[in-house]
């Protein structure tokens, strides 16, 4: 049980670190840039950051985009 709890805590910590990373990267978006995500709507960077913090559907999409693109960059798959 203790091991399970420890793993759960580690995962939560990792998830939090990922969120912080994604939020930091979103902060670096230039002012005035908006992102349209299908019929979900159009969002400025402040709204996207709030979504990541709130862990809502838009926030989850931002995390997915960031994590997958960073992985691609690491693997040299970003330009192909």
């Amino acid at each position, binding site marked *: 049980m203790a091991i399970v709890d420890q793993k759960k805590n580690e995962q939560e910590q990792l998830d939090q670190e990922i969120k912080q990373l994604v939020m930091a990267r979103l902060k670096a978006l230039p002012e005035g*840039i908006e*992102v*349209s*995500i*299908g019929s979900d709507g159009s969002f400025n960077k402040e709204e996207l950051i709030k979504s990541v913090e709130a862990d809502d559907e838009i926030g989850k999409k931002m995390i997915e*985009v960031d994590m997958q*693109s960073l992985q691609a960059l690491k693997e040299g798959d970003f330009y192909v």
Partner: protein
Amino acid sequence: MSKYKVLLITRPDHDKATRYLSAWSDKIIQMAGVKDIPVFDLKRKKANKEDLTSFLKKKDPALVILNGHGNIDEVTGHNNKLLVKAGENEHILKGRIIYALSCSSALILGKKSISAGALSYIGYEKDFMLCNDSHKIARPLQDKVAKLFLEPSNQICKSLLKGNTCGKASENSKKIFAKNIRMLLSSDAPLGSSEYAKFLWWDMKAQVCLGDMEATF
């Protein structure tokens, strides 16, 4: 039965994203005009299921461009009203080349369309992310940020209108996505612009060409 060398395009225009898609589709219509290709432009309220079905039946276009929102099994038109849905009316796309600038529709609708006889379906298997400059909303065609996303999308239509195969059209589009990504990551790019390169990458990776890659318009 061969289709007519005619282009049908849907252009809903009810929110920011569709406004951009509609505006940038002007360039596609101009390209078709230069090549003397008739265009049936279902703009705004005309981007509805009834008009789409009617025009497909009467004019029998070989190339159909569907702009609009969507999800894995449907593409919508003006005010997000349904246009085509897998399991309902994908048969209307039979025998045609389709380019759907619509979120995720290639995942199910695209495949079902091919099963129902569509020649080829170029689309996206995930959400299409579109960045824009909020200062240029009134002039979408002057938006250099949106251009990074919609120029590669328009390249599909440009390539098809030039007679390239569907596979080649998708390939050409992805090359422009990649070129734009490289530009954003270069040291000459404006500060912070590398942060939206990831959305271009996302769209590039999500684009697929289903069905007959050798099909031409």
